């Protein structure tokens, strides 16, 4: 079929038309190869004009559409649905931004602004000619959830998933559900018995038809992806296989024994906070008269951060000791009290009512405990920074509030689930702020102390949240992804597996070096990092193919390449900064021609090389500032790639001073403008 491109150029009232000679651009567009129809409109996003676009598609038998107007960041969905209504595949649209990238930023030079608008339209048409129909991708998702870990988080999530009508397999490596709560006495700040909560949850779980509990069970193997996990469970040497649609990791945490610290291990009456909880729970503490609780042992140091819950636990157990023996002396040695919000009341009230002594010791952690020879009696010595002198007591029990680490199974699970964890064995969420309960891989979620130490309240909140995250695809029955995905050419592929390692979303299944990997399209986010990294050029990205991007480069540099800078901008922050420069009407030189990619990770070295071969004045790669990347770390990989390219070119004696990069936030309009101005100046351009 012949390619017939329709070009619609917007005046945006006078926003574009007041600077750019729109009629001229339309005339120019109509002469371009492949263009069957070109027209201007006052507001091409208006309802009237959108129907006109639909009529024109029918009348002129258009099969590709280029709109030249504002920014794809706000208006792409509108035009996509319009051409879809006209019967065209929505992937056959190319969006050209002549307002943000020309009329608004080259106001004082209408002639050059018009030239640039023409170039942008030409680049758009060049790409449009090569566009292919795409389709949204769907995988069906069933209604079974596997929950790993039967502590409070796992149990709470299990009940919430089951209450939605989905089936749950809840696996627990120990013989009893309850996790760390099975060792705790009471729960702060609510003064609830830990055992009671566990029994209550176990009761509800046992009665629930939708939950199957597997105790003494560990995960042996996981294959597949969201909607279709094949899971192998191990139970004392027996294996069981089952299927799951989604997975929640609620593997909890363990206390780190502070071997060799502050006399731990040397004296029997130096114990950890968790050991104290166990003694209180089993009522086996015995009579103590003088208790020293030391906070921040083995945490808030170079190895690990704050344990989050230690201050609250310390005060809770201090209260219990006082309730057992109101004459006992209890000192809490602390660095900073990390008790916030409402819990401050609980803390203050406890300190006041039970006369608990608080001693602030220095951040360098100087506390010495030694035996004083009298049947197990200890001496504790430190410096009280509030009084400003040495402080000494003779406690009969020393309790160390120590740090935590993720469960010992995390090391294995990390590999099985293809997710990351930090050195302390806590799982890494997809984004610490905005996707706290997701992993980067769709279909797997996390909650509670598997992320980092959590209070009871936070654990419950997160567990409900994880049940929602897992519940959404099961409720819908499918997951859907945009059709901008990786496509592997199996003939060019030599099965090296680099793409699978590069992908942060687990979207590439690599079995071994005997067969090409497979893209799980519904998981692919379309960043294109794998395509840019592939040593054999065997991967392409639908809608951002090598051929399409190179066609844009070629079109941009067809005339007067020595005056032009080709800029590859990511759709998110870099284009955001370009748009802000536009909205703020910051002027910058017209030399820059922007090519949009979804992520800077997509920018292949050969795109840059092609621009240089065609004698471009310069190349700018613009991505999200670090550490923000909408595809986790595509910007990092791009930056490394640019460095490698520069080294390679230097060896060939090719001048690399034309290759620039800039890493922007979406508010960085001024920085983008400054970069363009610098480039123009340093590369001695000017038209």
């Amino acid at each position, binding site marked *: 079929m012949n390619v017939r491109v329709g070009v619609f150029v917007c005046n945006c009232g006078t*926003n574009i038309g007041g600077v750019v000679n729109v009629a001229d651009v339309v005339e120019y567009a109509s002469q371009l190869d492949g263009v069957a129809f070109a027209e201007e409109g006052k507001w091409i996003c208006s309802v009237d004009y959108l129907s006109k676009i639909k009529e024109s598609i029918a009348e002129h038998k258009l099969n590709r559409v280029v709109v030249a107007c504002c920014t794809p960041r706000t208006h792409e969905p509108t035009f996509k649905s319009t051409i879809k209504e006209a019967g065209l595949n929505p992937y056959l649209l190319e969006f050209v931004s002549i307002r943000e990238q020309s009329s608004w930023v080259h106001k004082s030079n209408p002639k050059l602004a018009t030239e640039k608008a023409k170039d942008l339209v030409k680049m758009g048409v060049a790409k449009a000619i090569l566009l292919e129909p795409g389709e949204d991708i769907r995988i069906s998702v069933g209604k079974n959830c596997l929950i790993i870990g039967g502590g409070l988080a796992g149990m709470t999530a299990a009940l919430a998933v089951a209450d939605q009508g989905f089936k749950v397999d809840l696996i627990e490596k120990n013989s009893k559900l309850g996790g760390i709560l099975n060792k705790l006495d009471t729960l702060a700040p609510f003064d609830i018995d830990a055992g009671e909560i566990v029994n209550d949850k176990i009761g509800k779980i046992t009665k629930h038809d939708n939950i199957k509990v597997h105790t003494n069970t560990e995960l042996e193997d996981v294959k597949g992806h969201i909607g279709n996990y094949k899971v192998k469970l191990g139970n004392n040497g027996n294996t069981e296989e089952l299927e799951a649609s989604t997975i929640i990791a609620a593997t909890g945490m363990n206390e780190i024994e502070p071997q060799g610290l502050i006399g731990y291990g040397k004296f029997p009456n130096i114990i950890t906070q968790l050991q104290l909880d166990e003694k209180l729970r089993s009522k086996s503490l015995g009579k103590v008269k003088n208790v020293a609780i030391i906070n921040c042992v083995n945490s808030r140091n170079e190895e690990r951060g704050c344990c989050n819950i230690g201050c609250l636990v310390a005060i809770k157990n201090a209260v219990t000791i006082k309730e057992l023996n109101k004459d006992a002396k209890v000192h809490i040695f602390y660095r900073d009290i*990390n*008790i916030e919000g409402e819990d401050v009341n609980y803390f203050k009230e406890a300190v006041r009512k039970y006369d608990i002594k608080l001693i602030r010791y220095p951040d360098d952690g100087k506390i010495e405990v030694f035996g004083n020879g009298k049947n197990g009696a200890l001496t504790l010595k430190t410096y009280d920074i509030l009084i400003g002198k040495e402080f000494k007591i003779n406690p009969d029990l020393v309790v160390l509030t120590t740090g935590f680490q993720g469960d010992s199974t995390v090391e294995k699970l990390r590999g099985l689930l293809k997710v990351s964890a930090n050195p302390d064995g806590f799982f890494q969420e997809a984004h610490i702020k905005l996707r706290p309960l997701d992993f980067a891989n769709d279909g797997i979620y996390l909650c509670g102390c598997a992320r980092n130490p959590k209070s009871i309240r936070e654990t419950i909140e997160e567990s*409900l949240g994880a049940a929602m995250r897992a519940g959404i695809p099961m409720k819908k029955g499918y997951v859907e992804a945009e059709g901008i995905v990786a496509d592997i050419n199996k003939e060019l592929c030599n099965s090296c597996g680099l793409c699978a390692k590069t992908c942060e979303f687990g979207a590439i299944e690599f079995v071994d070096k005997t067969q090409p990997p497979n893209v799980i399209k519904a998981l692919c986010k379309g960043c294109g990092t794998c395509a840019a990294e592939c040593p054999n050029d065997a991967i392409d990205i639908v809608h951002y193919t090598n051929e399409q991007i190179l066609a844009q480069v070629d079109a941009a540099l067809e005339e007067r390449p020595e005056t032009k800078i080709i800029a590859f901008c990511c759709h998110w922050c870099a284009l955001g900064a370009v748009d802000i420069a536009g909205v703020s009407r910051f002027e910058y030189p017209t030399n820059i021609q922007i090519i949009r990619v979804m992520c800077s990770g997509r920018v292949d070295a050969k795109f840059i090389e092609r621009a240089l071969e065609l004698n471009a004045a310069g190349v700018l790669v613009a991505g999200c500032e670090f550490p*923000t990347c909408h595809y986790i770390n595509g910007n990092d990989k791009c930056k490394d790639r640019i460095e490698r390219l520069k080294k390679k070119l230097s060896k060939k004696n090719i001048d690399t001073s034309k290759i620039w990069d800039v890493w922007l936030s979406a*508010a960085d309009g001024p920085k983008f403008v400054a970069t363009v101005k610098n480039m123009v100046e340093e590369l001695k351009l000017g038209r």
Partner: protein
Amino acid sequence: MSKSVLIIGGGIAGIEAALNLADYDFQVYLVDNFPTIGGLMARLDKTFPTNDCSICIEAPKMYEVQKNPNIHLLTNCEIRRVNGTEDVFKVRIVKKPRFVDEEKCKGCGKCTEACPVSVPDEIDNKIGGLRKLAYIPFPQAVPNYYLIHPDCRYGKMKDEGACIGDCIIDCIQCRECPIALCVKACKDEGGDAVMLWQREELLDLEVNSIIVASGIESFEPPRGLYGYDVYDNVITNLQYERLMNAGGPTQGEIVRPSDGAHARRIAWVQCVGREKREGKPEPIPYCSKVCCMIATKQTIVTLEHGADAKAYVLHNHLQTYGKGFYEFYRRAKELGVRYLKGKPSDVFENPKTKNLTIRFEDLDKGEVEDLEIDLLVLSTGLIPGNSNKRLSKILKIELNEHGFIKEKDPVNAPFETNVKGIYVCGGATGPIDISESVSQAIGASMKAAIEVSR
């Protein structure tokens, strides 16, 4: 038929709850008092402990809200009345006039260009940002419609040059405006979207459940506290956030309000709002959790901007409770930030240089010290949103002693208020960071979804 939910508040918690419930096939009515969603997060420059750009990560979610067919976005709206039982709540909403027809506004900004009147931008306060009377709150605003200040009607801004000619007719009667420049500018663009005669509208809805995500506010220090509002170079942490922002009034330059010079020595005072004065109780009787990390973030960004800058943080209990927080604090220390235990007893200004001297007791050394600086940042705490009281009356939900919305029982009935079918999440529950707000919003959505489907 799909179930419906009303979400009150379009900050990050409301946005997250809306997106999750919309994906769960709920009809979502997302109501915000302000003309745009985004909440407090949209006003921040960076987020701790990763220094992600705040609007860069929030704006894509805001666009998703706008695109989602299950979400009905009601900005510039207020809840007026709620009646109902646990199954169906009848809600009356007032849509305040924007004086711009949302169906006709193309977001082109010609009205702003035409408007001759600039006023201080609410979000920039004393650091000098201005906005026009015809404006959008910020470039990434969702929805991207402009609005006109109510004072622009009745020819009131004529003396400011906003109108040509006189008018004595009531705008509401007139229904056209031949004199306002913004109206003319829009018409010249072929738009005709500015309607100074717009009136408030009433909307009635029926929903199955309600999530209160009305957010939290930053405490405004009283005049004189550490020299605030008396000395030029004393600002709050929220104002500092705008100073750091490349899109802010100084384009990210850290300059002093007094003379526009770059600030080289900057100190942060923590726990502002927790002072007991003249026998009065503390204005904020709880720890606001996030201010220590906000200060840490601000010092890191400052030192990364200008390597010769010096940063001091005067603190009491340093809150490093969350994942990666302590590591973040260590990074600041490695960059050279000096953390000093102690609270200023006094702040003096040098009337000539406008530099400030802080007098404080360094608890580590046990000595009183004087520290001379160029700029003082008050790390103010977080206080209940000013709509909490009104919402508590309208929804018949209880507040806690501090004025936050009370959760009935965080262990056995998380996110529930005392009214069945009404849930709470995010800053409305108390001081909270973005990550926890998001987790709570998702959790509260789950609660609402399960209860409604029962």
